């Protein structure tokens, strides 16, 4: 059956049935009252015909629940506009090969969690040798020089290092933020780069759980990567953008 894009709902086994599965914990002793509390909470989420299928005490006065229900709401998906990074993701081997053949020198990527953010999990997933989801991180790429500056790096310091290292691309990660402090921080980096006439010198990329490509563009970045990004997504974007920007012969003969 064809879905109606103007009214999209979750799908269990019948179109528009709105089926959801939820699991969570409440700080209540396991019992009838806790079950009722879980059910009521789920109803308040706009879910009907709530079915509590599992309730289990976990000790210390906490109880775990698994529930199903039908979501009342739908969304008009025909009006949704998204922009996404348009480069095609290549494999680890293809990327290194691409750099060797088309850029003909090693490229340099500098990354940092800027401002107050001490959470390097996202940055490390992309940059560290270890990588993420079975994909090697950029450090493992023989054709990429990687400088991971770590956490709580001031924007000024990131720029200084990027210039010193003659970076091709800057990766900024923002994971944990409060009161939209990440927006302010990301904007400040662009302003500083522009003030020093350096904005066009680097490919500027931001990543993090709250980042979308759309948001990145609005903030003056070249690209934004959200949850689920793997290292080759970022590397592919960098190398393809570099060749587009005509830097191919930079480090050449």
């Amino acid at each position: 059956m064809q879905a109606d894009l103007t009214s999209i709902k979750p799908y269990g086994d019948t179109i528009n049935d709105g089926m959801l599965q939820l699991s969570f914990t409440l700080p209540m002793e396991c019992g009838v009252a806790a079950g009722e509390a879980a059910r009521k909470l789920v109803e308040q989420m706009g879910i009907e015909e709530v079915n509590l299928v599992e309730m289990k005490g976990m000790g210390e006065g906490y109880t775990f629940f698994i529930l199903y229900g039908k979501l009342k709401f739908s969304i008009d998906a025909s009006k949704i506009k998204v922009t996404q990074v348009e480069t095609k993701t290549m494999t680890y081997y293809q990327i290194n090969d691409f750099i060797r053949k088309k850029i003909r020198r090693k490229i340099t990527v500098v990354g940092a969690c800027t401002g107050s953010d001490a959470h390097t999990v996202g940055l490390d997933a992309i940059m560290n040798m270890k990588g993420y989801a079975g994909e090697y991180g950029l450090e493992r790429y023989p054709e990429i020089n990687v400088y991971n500056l770590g956490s709580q790096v001031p924007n000024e310091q990131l720029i200084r290092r990027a210039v010193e290292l003659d970076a091709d691309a800057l990766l900024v990660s923002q994971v944990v933020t409060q009161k939209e402090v990440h927006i302010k921080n990301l904007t400040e980096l662009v302003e500083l780069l522009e003030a020093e006439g350096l904005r066009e010198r680097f490919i500027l990329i931001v990543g993090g759980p709250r980042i979308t490509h759309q948001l990145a563009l609005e903030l003056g970045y070249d690209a934004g990567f959200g949850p689920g990004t793997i290292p080759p997504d970022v590397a592919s974007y960098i190398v393809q953008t570099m060749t587009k920007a005509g830097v191919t012969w930079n480090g050449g003969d």
Partner: protein
Amino acid sequence: MFSLLEKLIIDQIKVDKCRQEARKIADGLQVDIEQNTTTAVERTVARLLGIDGVDEGGIPLPNVVVEQVMLSAELNRGIAYWLGNAVLVTGKTPAAIAVAVGDGQLVLSELPLHPLTEVQDVLTTIVGATVNRIKAIREQRACLQKKYRPGPQPWLYVIVATGNIYEDVVQAKAAARQGADVIAVIRSTAQSLLDYVPYGATTEGFGGTYATQENFRIMRKALDEVGQEIGRYIQLVNYASGLAMPEIAALGALERLDMMLNDAMYGILFRDINMKRTLIDQYFSRMINAFSGIIINTGEDNYLTTADAVEEAHTVLASEFINEELAYRSGLPPEQLGLGHAFEINPALEDGFLMEIAQAQLIRQVFPEAALKYMPPTKYMSGNIFKGHLMDGMFNLVSIMTGQNIQLLGMLTEAIHTPFLSDRALSIENARYIFNNARHLQEEISFKPGGRIQRRAELVLKETEEMLTEIAGKGLLQAIAEGMFADISRSIEGGKGADGVLSKSENYYNPFMEIFREELGV
């Protein structure tokens, strides 16, 4: 009918050769270890002499006294000499002396000097009291474990990581009630790079909780309470690693921790700590772990998170031989040796599960008495929590089939966030189900001679022997510099904490090392 040792056919000559090469490798490190000390070792001695607390600026007093002596370039006699000398001159305790140093009222190197024999005499009582205290704590553990027996192996090992010790207590007690046997309190990000131990109870950390003596005490008390209630001794784990490695080992001894992560090479490879610094620190820290009856956990699992688990399987086994030999030299018996390995083969690989079995069984047979610590899948965990939960189940199955001892439970949300209370409960349920449901599967299995599992084990052992021979030829430091472990290369002179390494003078004095060596027979 089948004993453990009849499972895989293992070439004992190769195994013996591996141990022989590991001894050569350790011999090559012995000179550096014996001729040098570090600021961390000296701070540990200060702590064992009763120095604790912080000065007005919040700097831990063990750092204050050691740094003062270091500035006057006299630390190579050992901090014990200077503290003992100050006891002779002032008549105060080392703890009171440290306070005076912190207040700027006393400069240890400017006091009139007494001969070493007098210093040794005056410290005898204090040193003896600390040694007896550690012995008593060890006996207390044995008594408690007799009364409240630990659960059957593989022990269910889970982590708490809220950053707030009081919140950790809630999570840890709940986990114990759910069935956990072992609770590890994950440290705050980058604590390993702090060249001191923070002080007091802490409620803020990033991705973990600071290891402090007070935090150890709070968690120990909570686990004893819940353990007595449910009639099962709950073991407590923390990290004797990083720049304060031996100090934390001492705190673990004083607060009755049961296991400590303690790897001879981890700090070098994964935290870029100076090689010599790490090797000297691991030697003393392991001696403390040995004397206090603490099971160490080595970190070979980490190799497979950076390097490929199929291609680099032998690096795990090779490192285990090295860790084993270095541990023996610190007086650790095999049953206190939690050698690490991991279930990290790409799940998309055909027969990957067979290779996991081969690897786990091989390690089991090569180290029959060790308390093997088996680590869960992390590298291929994704946002698909349902698949992840199944991978954790496969991991649990290998463990019960191959007789592992310490099972660090995988979390279905591994790649997403530090575990929720419910994640931990689901993991414990998963492990208990499989361990109970397949409890004696191991006794029913033998492996087909010449089959895939047998052949895989043979290959890994052969590559291990080759690797150890190569390392023995060039020396461990050079091997690490060449990136032979975890695809990570570190320079011999570089790394953090190199400035904290100093040569011992001829009259160097460390009463604890002397006693531990004697009591442990090393």
